[in-house]
């Protein structure tokens, strides 16, 4: 064996190197961290040559690692789909790995770099550009062509967001906006018929419920998803968090301050308790202490688990004057790890198509399918909550698709919303600090990603 290698003219290839065991792997990790290995197939080399022809795979048996962050009620739905896919495809075996989203985005780049990561990964719209720039994922233009995906079958903003520097990196799977959930019993208790739709009716209904003994009708969180509520409201009040080309942050615009002030005021007026820690508003909704809550569509199956909870869903009410709501989207991506192996790349293509074709089953987990043809199917119309969320698609506000922008959320406006909600700073001061920091980080990102 040693002789064979020496006749090769030197060195082990990547595959043999991987087989050398733990000690060598540790060494390779250091080497990989040092950036000395150049990834094959990265940076625009993906082509029909890699992805083959058509939408089928007939090669030898191949196994695919599929990673996502579906840790909630959505996980079992995806797992079921994967199992079904495996039983229908004798020569492809997909194994699914689920991580918390926050850990997911930290681990995937490292894992892919070391060759032990996913071949297919689900990513949010605002992480596509970052991971494309960091060469974690590869261009999928040929896949979109081979699978005959048409732009007009997708929500335009979602479809566009998958493009970074002229190449497509994501195949949209779904859209998930915030929804307005309400407890029917509490509405009845307050003598309110039907969920409110604008600021006047919203505040009148809060007052009515409070007057009839609902102690805290509207729990406004301080942590997740508080910043998504703020994101919806700043658009409603006529502002945008970032300038159009996402080069400048403008969180502290009048609209931004009005949005955050309205959130803080709910506790001041006694409609929300103070000091809501992470997840408490959701626990309270399950316990029927919280009458109205704004949370992700993915929470719907959480509410369904509570038998005694009589709840409904509606579009996020128009508080600021313009209808708007935060939303994001899950996208399929193929990592540069799969680009090392034609069979894997082609099998991944088949998997993406299959799940996309079955996105009605995925919708049941609490998602709005990205494809219009699925949304307009009679099967989808029967999904009550999802259909309500689909109405929101007319006014959803996605995070911008710029490299590095997803990393800004946590240290800037998410922090500012928390500080204001917990009374540490007033809304304006919190947003001023966040804006300055965001602009510094945006400048650093431009330098780093050359945008």
């Amino acid at each position, binding site marked *: 064996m040693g002789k064979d290698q020496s006749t090769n003219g030197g060195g082990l290839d990547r595959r043999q190197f991987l087989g050398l065991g733990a*000690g060598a792997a*540790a060494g390779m990790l250091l080497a990989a961290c040092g950036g000395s290995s150049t990834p094959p197939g990265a940076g625009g080399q993906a082509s029909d040559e890699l992805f083959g022809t058509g939408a089928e795979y007939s090669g030898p048996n191949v196994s695919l690692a599929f990673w996502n962050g579906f840790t909630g009620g959505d996980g079992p739905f995806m797992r079921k789909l994967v199992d079904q896919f495996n039983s229908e495809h004798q020569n492809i075996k997909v194994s699914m790995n689920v991580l918390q989203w926050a850990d997911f985005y*930290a681990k995937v780049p490292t894992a892919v770099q070391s060759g032990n990561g996913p071949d297919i990964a689900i990513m949010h719209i605002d992480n596509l550009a970052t991971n494309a720039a960091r060469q974690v994922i590869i261009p999928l233009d040929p896949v979109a062509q081979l699978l005959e995906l048409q732009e007009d079958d997708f929500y335009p903003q979602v479809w566009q967001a998958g493009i970074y520097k002229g190449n497509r990196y994501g195949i949209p799977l779904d859209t998930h906006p915030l929804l307005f959930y309400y407890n029917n019993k509490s509405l009845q208790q307050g003598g309110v018929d039907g969920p409110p739709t604008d600021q006047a009716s919203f505040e009148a209904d809060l007052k009515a419920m409070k007057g009839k003994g609902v102690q805290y009708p509207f729990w406004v969180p301080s942590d997740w998803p508080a910043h998504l509520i703020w994101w919806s409201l700043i658009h409603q009040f006529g502002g945008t968090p970032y300038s159009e080309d996402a080069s400048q942050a403008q969180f502290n615009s009048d609209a931004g301050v009005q949005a955050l002030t309205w959130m803080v005021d709910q506790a001041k007026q006694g409609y929300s308790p103070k000091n809501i820690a992470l997840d408490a508003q959701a626990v309270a909704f399950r316990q029927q202490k919280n009458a109205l809550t704004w949370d992700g569509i993915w929470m719907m199956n959480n509410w369904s688990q509570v038998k005694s909870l009589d709840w409904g869903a509606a579009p996020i009410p128009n508080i600021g004057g313009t209808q708007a709501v935060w939303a994001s989207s899950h996208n399929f991506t193929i990592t540069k790890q799969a680009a090392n192996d034609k069979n894997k790349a082609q099998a991944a293509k088949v998997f993406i198509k299959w799940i996309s074709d079955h996105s009605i089953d995925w919708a049941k987990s609490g998602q709005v399918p990205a494809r219009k043809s699925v949304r307009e199917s009679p099967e989808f119309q029967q999904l009550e909550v999802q259909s309500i969320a689909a109405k929101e698609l007319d006014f959803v506000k996605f995070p911008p698709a710029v490299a590095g922008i997803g990393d800004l959320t946590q240290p800037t406006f998410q922090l500012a919303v928390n500080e204001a909600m917990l009374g*540490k700073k007033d809304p304006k001061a919190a947003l001023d600090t966040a804006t300055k920091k965001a602009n510094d980080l945006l400048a650093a990102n431009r330098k780093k990603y050359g945008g």
Partner: protein
Amino acid sequence: MTTTDVGGRAAPPAAGPGAGVGPQGLAPTGRGVKGGSGLTPYLFLAPYLILFTVFVLAPAIFLIWISLHDWDFLLPGKPFVGLENYLDLFKSGTVSSGPFWSSMEATGKFVLYSVPLLVVIPMALAILLNQRFPGRNFFRAAYFAPYVLGVAVVGILWHFLLDPNVGLVNYYLDKLGIDANIPWTTETPWVWAALVGPTVWWTLGFNTVIYLAGLQDIPRELYEAAKVDGAGRWAQFRNVTLPGLRPVLIFVVTTTILASANVFGQPYLITNGRPGIETRSAIMHIGQVGLREFRMGEAAAGSLILTLALVLVSLVTFVAFRERKER
């Protein structure tokens, strides 16, 4: 030395209390290993040394290298920036300095609040558990039990127990007529109680066991001698127990400081670093900046500063305990 000679009786041979049998006593073969080559000791060291080099030394040196760059391991360009990462951390008003020093402050506070409790309470417990009483083993096990739980279990458990609005602790306080609605996990200073309290509950068993072992090493004769000399309980504690525990105490204090300074799981899970980033510990911050925001140069510089600070603190503790020993 602290005990007076007891009337010509056979006093314990090792006069220094707690010193036990020193290494000198065990090693009459100080002449070197017969027949071994000069390499032998290094070969014995090798297994550990290799692991140490690969997993500690090399990464540590690599860390210094990273800290001198604007580093993102996936990007082809990793510009060398010299000491800029460090300067930014020490300059006020930069993106990196504010949150970093806030996290260092949070870590310092956590150490300050938790270490005294984790040194004193386990010592008192160990002395109690060293008495003879029925059910002693049960209590020893009971106090140690939380320590076997993982930080994830402890963190999530206390996050919900201490929730200001839907938590069990406030619920029972309310039942007791204390209508405080204490913001355990969202407001200073309560957050510190929410972090230190569960930490003490969780880890005191470990220090207790170490103290217990230390207590059992103190020769019984010393107590008898002290009693003969008319020492009361307090005098016995001061003159026999405490000096006897000194080596153990140094160990406990040093490891507890280091463990507390490396706190991550509790603020991550119980308070989520809230309010704002006031309870975000240094390790949490370094992880956030390096692995979530991918500013690894800055994170590396921060962790080197943390390391140096901890080395300094350890040295101070060590010296402080040594000073008292002289005489």
